């Protein structure tokens, strides 16, 4: 391993224009990104977006159709997984069914020939972190889903590789443990100063732990940004819909003729955002307005409001989601639950946009974000 060439600025992992086809189907299309050293980067995408394929190519279990993978600046193309200095946790866990929890976790160290006392110490340390001390002498067949998952996580974390690849590491845990472990994972990464690349379809998890999120969509990287930017400024309509709950409102917009021109959607007539007026006017495919439910509110009627009929109330504890329908479509509005207790379906509500600057605009056909 050529550690001398490591520099602080050099990325730990660099993916250059990876393409992967299975027969006629293309799984990855020109995927390119870098993962900085000592960071927790998340590959976020729906099932089938190409997350697992990407991780398998990085680890060397699959070879890309074209493109290259660099780990610490070294092109690892053609190297076997064992020579790439990566640890990986599989999404189906892949524990050794004939080995105890202890031996599953210890296996990488046993292969490396680490002294037995050190192995014992390290396995017990990891087991404590993951709360699996009690199940170390059991076989995977006798463990619950969450226990197996933590054994698999332990088998990856026991090592000291250039990069940890974790494929949906928290998926089959119950909600409490998932939240607990994800902050534990975050803490482990910060303390160890190691590089983590974590794949997940869960945007909550991505937003909670990531330094940087790589958004994958149908085998393409559509955006690489910080979690907050990804939420506030998604580069694609599908990304906007993938991230955030309740679902973002996507409402067909148009520019009204007349002086001064106005932005019209869902019955609203608002001033055109100055930095976007050219882009919106030039959008020959038409455009959609994206508006998060928390940026709409119910108010008293005025010139800046739109009206609609209340068709549904979905309580979410402290908040409720109102669905309001009018001739232009349906919009979801996030409101304080207390304000709408006992509100009657069918009543007409006046709706206003709270933060016009948070409105998003997407090309009507391509779905790409329109920028000024």
């Amino acid at each position: 391993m050529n550690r001398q060439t490591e520099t602080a600025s050099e990325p730990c992992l660099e993916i250059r224009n990876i393409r992967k086809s299975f027969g006629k189907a293309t799984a990855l299309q020109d995927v390119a990104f870098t993962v900085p050293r000592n960071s927790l980067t998340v590959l976020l995408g729906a099932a089938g977006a190409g997350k697992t394929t990407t991780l398998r190519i990085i680890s060397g279990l699959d070879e890309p159709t074209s493109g290259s993978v660099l780990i610490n600046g070294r092109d690892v193309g053609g190297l076997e997984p064992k020579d790439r200095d990566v640890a990986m946790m599989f999404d189906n866990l892949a524990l050794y069914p004939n080995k105890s929890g202890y031996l599953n976790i210890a296996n990488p160290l046993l292969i490396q020939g680490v002294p037995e006392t050190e192995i014992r110490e390290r396995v017990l340390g990891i087991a404590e972190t993951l709360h699996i001390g009690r199940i170390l002498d059991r076989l995977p067949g006798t463990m619950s889903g969450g226990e197996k998952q933590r054994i698999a996580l332990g088998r990856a974390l026991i090592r000291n590789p250039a990069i940890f690849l974790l494929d949906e590491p928290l998926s089959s845990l119950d909600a409490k443990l998932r939240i607990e472990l994800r902050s534990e994972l975050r803490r482990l990464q910060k303390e160890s100063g190691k590089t983590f690349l974590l794949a997940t379809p869960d945007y909550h998890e991505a937003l909670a732990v990531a330094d940087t999120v790589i958004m994958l969509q149908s085998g393409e990287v559509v955006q690489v940004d910080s979690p907050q930017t990804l939420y506030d400024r998604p580069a694609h309509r599908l990304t906007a819909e993938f991230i955030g709950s309740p679902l973002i409102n996507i409402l067909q917009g148009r520019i009204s003729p007349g002086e001064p021109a106005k932005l019209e959607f869902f019955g609203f007539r608002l001033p055109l955002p100055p930095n976007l007026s050219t882009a919106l006017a030039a959008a020959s495919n038409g455009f959609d307005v994206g508006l998060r439910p928390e940026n709409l509110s119910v108010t008293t009627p005025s010139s800046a409001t739109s009206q609609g009929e209340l068709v549904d109330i979905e309580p979410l504890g402290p908040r409720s989601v109102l669905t309001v329908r009018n001739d232009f479509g349906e919009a979801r509005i996030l409101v304080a639950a207390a304000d709408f207790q006992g509100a009657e379906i069918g009543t007409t509500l006046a709706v206003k946009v709270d933060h016009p600057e948070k409105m998003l605009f997407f090309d009507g056909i391509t779905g790409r974000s329109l920028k000024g």
Partner: protein
Amino acid sequence: MTEPKKLTRLQAIILLVALILTLFPIFWIVMTAIKPPTDWNASPAIWIPSEPTLINFKTLFDPDAIRAYGVGGVSQAATSAVIGSIIASVTATLLSVSIGLFSAIGISRYAKNSKWTPLVILSGRMFIPAAIAVPFVIIFSNIGLTDTYTGLIAIYVAITLPFSTWMLKSFVDDLPREIEEAAMIDGKSRLAAHLTVTIPLIKGGLFATTMFIFILNWSEFLFALVLSYSNINTIPVQLAKYVTATAGTLYGVQAALAVLAMLPLIVVGYFIQSHLARGMTFGAIKQ
């Protein structure tokens, strides 16, 4: 483990009939093996011999022993056939299963399988054996392999390799590939991962396949017959030799050899049955 299901009366009757059909020939062979020559052909049939004897077994290794009953003997003892069967079957089975094992892993894990793969692998089995026996005899006599164990073993491996490959492939297919990939990630080479993870986890399938291939080789008759003259002999060929021109068929001696030939299969089967159970991979992956 689920509770065994209770059988309906109809199912029980069908099973009983099937069981009788399967076991009766075995019963009859064993009984014949201990019948004295006078009972072999008796009419009405004698089901259970009144004077059980081991003379038939004795005759297998001492062809003249049967003369005490006034029956013409056979010229050749069965010893060479038993030894020949062991040499040919054991060697061919080990070769077939080891080559098949690596072929199976290769096909299952590294080959781009098409819908034609099974056909291509199993196509050799679609010929009528007699049709390929003739060209084999011609080729083998040209290269000096007739009447040798090398030749017989080569043919047995060629015939059984498609079966061992195909059976083992199904066991490898059932094993999630991520388990051996985890070993590769943990630091094993591809080959080491297959040797230390894949193979131990398909142990049951490996034993079952070995048993199956051994039975095929042990009971093969046609090729052993056409390729053997004087140097090699196997049990199935020897069995046919008890049909004599002078003394008719020596049913009792034939049955005795058949019983002997069954013994290793029963013993192996007994020891193998615990490995036949599936479920080795239970709990390995998230369902």
